[in-house]
């Protein structure tokens, strides 16, 4: 019983990391149909921001808190710049966006290698996040994992509130649901796109701060997560926040339970097969936006 509970909690915390990463993608890939392979490098940028701030500010706790908004801004600015330079020219060719942004991600990785060096760097977790909380006999929850879980849920909440109740969110939803109609209604769709991209990329930066607590930071940090994150969005349903939330946790738990009963590599393969099978059942993902378009 304790084993099952421990594995489930590990799974939920894997899911929380996945969710944080996939959240930004839900916006950029889901809402805008842009496949941004450089999203992983925005995560990396967030992680390196944490590292740099920790060098500048000695207190690990303070620097982590400062890093959250700064990483959001850094990654968001990179995203907005990318959108302005390249992506807005490619909205009609989504598959080409994938390849172009992959080229960008190559360059950003090399940039990180030139600035911070090829080996991984480490950050110190604040003392308050290094311990465990013993919940019951034999079951303990790592503080850092709880922090990530909280951060993920907070981000989901914030994003939901922004999309539901702010003028910006209303405009974003309008553009997603019907771009042409939004444009003739007087919405500057180009500006909305850039803001959407800014927020989506910024969330990648926040995810980057979170992953410094669970793993090393290196030039290829982003690539390790990006494929899984895309799968979360695909399975959850394009542009569906609740779909991504459910999928991230289900995949996380599935992964960790399978890892326990088999091996890491076999678990990955089984999860992938499960996803292909799932798409047989629901090719548009868990939740879909019902439209009359054929595509």
């Amino acid at each position, binding site marked *: 019983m304790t084993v099952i509970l421990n594995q489930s909690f590990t799974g939920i915390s894997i899911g929380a990391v996945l969710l944080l990463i996939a959240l930004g993608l839900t916006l950029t890939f889901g809402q805008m149909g842009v496949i941004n392979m450089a999203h992983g490098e925005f995560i990396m940028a967030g992680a390196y921001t944490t590292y740099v701030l920790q060098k500048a500010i000695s207190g690990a706790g303070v620097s982590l808190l400062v890093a959250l908004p700064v990483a959001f801004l850094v990654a968001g600015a990179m995203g907005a710049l990318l959108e302005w330079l390249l992506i807005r020219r490619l909205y009609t060719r989504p598959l080409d966006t994938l390849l172009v942004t992959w080229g960008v991600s190559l360059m950003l990785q090399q940039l990180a290698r030139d600035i911070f060096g090829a080996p991984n760097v480490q950050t110190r977790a604040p003392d308050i996040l290094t311990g465990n909380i013993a919940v019951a006999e034999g079951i303990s929850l790592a503080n850092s994992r709880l922090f990530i879980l909280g951060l993920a849920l907070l981000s989901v909440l914030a994003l939901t509130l922004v999309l539901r109740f702010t003028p910006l969110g209303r405009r974003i939803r309008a553009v997603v649901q019907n771009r042409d109609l939004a444009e003739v209604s007087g919405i500057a769709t180009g500006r909305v796109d850039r803001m959407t991209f800014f927020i989506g990329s910024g969330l990648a930066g926040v995810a980057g701060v979170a992953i410094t607590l669970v793993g090393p930071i290196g030039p290829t940090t982003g690539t390790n997560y990006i494929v899984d994150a895309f799968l979360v969005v695909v399975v959850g349903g394009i542009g569906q926040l609740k779909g991504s939330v459910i999928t991230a946790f289900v995949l996380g738990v599935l992964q960790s339970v399978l890892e326990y009963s088999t091996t890491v590599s076999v678990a990955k393969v089984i999860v992938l097969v499960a996803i292909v099978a799932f798409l047989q059942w629901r*090719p548009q993902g868990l939740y879909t936006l019902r439209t009359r378009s054929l595509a």
Partner: protein
Amino acid sequence: MTTTSAPTTPAPEVTKATSPLTRFRVPGGFALGAVLLLGIAPLALTDFRLALLAKYLCWAMVAVGVSLAWGRGGLLVLGQGVFFGLGGYAMAMHLKLADAADTGIPGALPDFMQLYGTGEALPWWWKPFGNPAFALAATVLLPMAVAAVLGFFVFRRRVRGAYFAILSQALAAALAIWLVGQQATTGGTNGLTDFQGFFGYDLDDPANQRTVYFVIAVSLLLLMAAARQLFVSRYGELLIAVRDSEERVRFLGYDPANVKLVAYVVAAGMAGLAGALFVPAVGIISPALIGVVPSIGFVIGAAVGGRASLVGAVLGAIAVAWAQSTLSDAFPGAWTYLQGLLFVVAVGFLPGGLASLGAVIRRNRIRTRSGEAA
């Protein structure tokens, strides 16, 4: 009046090949390629450079498939490494077993298995690859079978566009991770390497390496000829129609799923053959050669050269591979920037690749000229 009435005589057949230049363009180009690859290159290049060229030609074979599936069919295949790897591993497993059999000890295991020490009998799924006929057939048929099963399920449910691209990429990631995890039976990160013989011939002998090169060059030419026939066939027309307007094709009564499936499976077979020939030419197959990054690499060459143009894709693949190995030795950092930039520029601003450069320049020149006239 005469202009509006229906013509009484059928419209004359569109004459395609009027000048001898256009009529002989394709066979002439093919002959030129054959002379370059089979005649001039082996004479002009040293053994070392010829071996490098053999490696590039293997990647070019994958690009032929990419050109078919992506250029003509619009299927962004980001997981060709899977099929390249299946072909490569099938061949490598046979070579390993043949080497082990050559030691003369009955029931000898391939060297790496003794090293990583499961120490037990050969796993059951290794056994059939001891048979040369089975292994050779498997290098092509195994990738095609995997592609057929995956493609059947994916295309039937109309999973397409970005979904398909990401799924195929995830497949490449999964295979690479699985191979690394099963070190005792697949060689793990190191892959399979250190082959002694190739169907009875000593691979260390330079003369035999040259023979391998010729096999690869001839295979590439044959694949290009086959792809060209597919391109100009009725099927090729249908494939382009599916790429450009899938729904319309469906309304006309065709099943786009089957059309895509054929392109995907054929491309997988080509990648499998390329992988199988890569093994004796280069002497290694490993997860690093077939994962996510090399899989995208297969697409880069085709994108830079011109995805829909067969010759463009092949030349692009060779050129990018050549640039990678020459420049990355001299300037490792700069090459990565250049590679990224190449990709951004080629895909973002020249979607037809370098093959379309002439047409783009011509169009711009006409536009400026007509602009001056107006």
